[in-house]
């Protein structure tokens, strides 16, 4: 919605917008309450969500968080929290395009540098499953595709 709003501002310079051009606003308003409530639920449950995702990660492949003497947990946790918050923001303002341009594309290059794709793949898959415990089906329907987008970009 935010990116679309920026585009709209640019394109309607000096004229009125058509109904078609305003449709995205209508769509946003229709889902706005869902987005707000989901956003706040995620924020409240963040610690639990991350904790459960971490457990899932450990259970799936302990080596992803610990290789030999090196403990990656703190790093992983910081990145997972970051990712969750950026995704939640994208949910709030309905801006998947912005999420990609402002965060995911850069973060993808960082994750590849540190060969953390596998870890990301499992992390965001687990996040999708775990957030459903805290959200209504409608809210999850809005949020999980965003997490899936993150998984796709970061997990490759």
């Amino acid at each position, binding site marked *: 919605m935010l990116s679309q709003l920026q585009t709209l501002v640019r394109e309607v310079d000096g004229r009125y917008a058509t109904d078609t051009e305003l449709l995205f606003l209508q769509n946003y308003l229709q889902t706005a309450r869902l987005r707000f409530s989901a956003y706040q639920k995620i924020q409240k449950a963040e610690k639990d969500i991350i904790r459960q995702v971490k457990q899932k990660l450990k259970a799936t492949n302990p080596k992803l968080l610990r290789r030999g003497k090196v403990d990656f947990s703190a790093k992983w946790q910081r990145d997972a929290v970051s990712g969750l918050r950026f995704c939640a923001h994208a949910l709030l303002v309905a801006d998947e395009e912005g999420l990609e341009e402002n965060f995911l*594309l850069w973060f993808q*290059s960082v994750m*590849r*540098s540190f060969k953390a794709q596998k870890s990301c793949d499992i992390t965001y898959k687990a996040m999708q499953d775990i957030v459903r415990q805290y959200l209504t089906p409608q809210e999850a329907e809005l949020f999980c595709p965003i997490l899936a987008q993150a998984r796709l970009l970061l997990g490759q």
Partner: protein
Amino acid sequence: MDTPSVRAHTLRQKYPQKHNHYNFADFFQFNESEGTIADWNGSRNILTSEDFIIGLLEGLEEEVGAASAAVMYSIGVEWGKQDSLFFDQWFEREYKVSPQQANLMFLLETWWWPFTAQGWGRWEIDMADRQQGFMFINLFDSAVARTLGDVGKPVCYLYAGLYAGFFTEMVRKQLSCIEIQCYSMGETYCKFLLGAKERIDAAAFWLNEGATAIDIEKRLRSGEPLS
């Protein structure tokens, strides 16, 4: 040491830890009162169109003919050298760690991100053959190649020079770079070979003989003698 306009970037002043800052709105700061554009790292920027690239290349060809390729390469080398010094400063300022101590891939990706933000294209480093002393750089959306279109010959000499200049400074060894595949030859992306001079000279020779990028890759990997 801060460059003169590093304080001109208000977003960076406010959020110095925001490492994800490469989209257009975040990376560039338009200082209307001064009429300047500063980027996140404090470098002055200007906006140009494809006309600039065409003007530069065609103007050069008019002046020096076929030598324009070598001139563009030299310009690139000098640019890469200067940029590596600039990069040394801003990388450490951004991440509080020296380039020498950083994860190599992260270092290199970080170096290239501003170029992507500026419209020079996205890249991909292929270090699979590093043990044999060479590496490939794949470039997507070369500003020069897509400006010129399919002209039937490689055109990204500026980039080749840039990579040669930058990597030479970073590894402290004399490296050369040559484009072995180009969008302007109908390929979907550009491919560069980076290595010591003898290797690059050999590749240039093979290219002249009509070898394709795949031929060159094969010959290098098989350890074919260079002369």
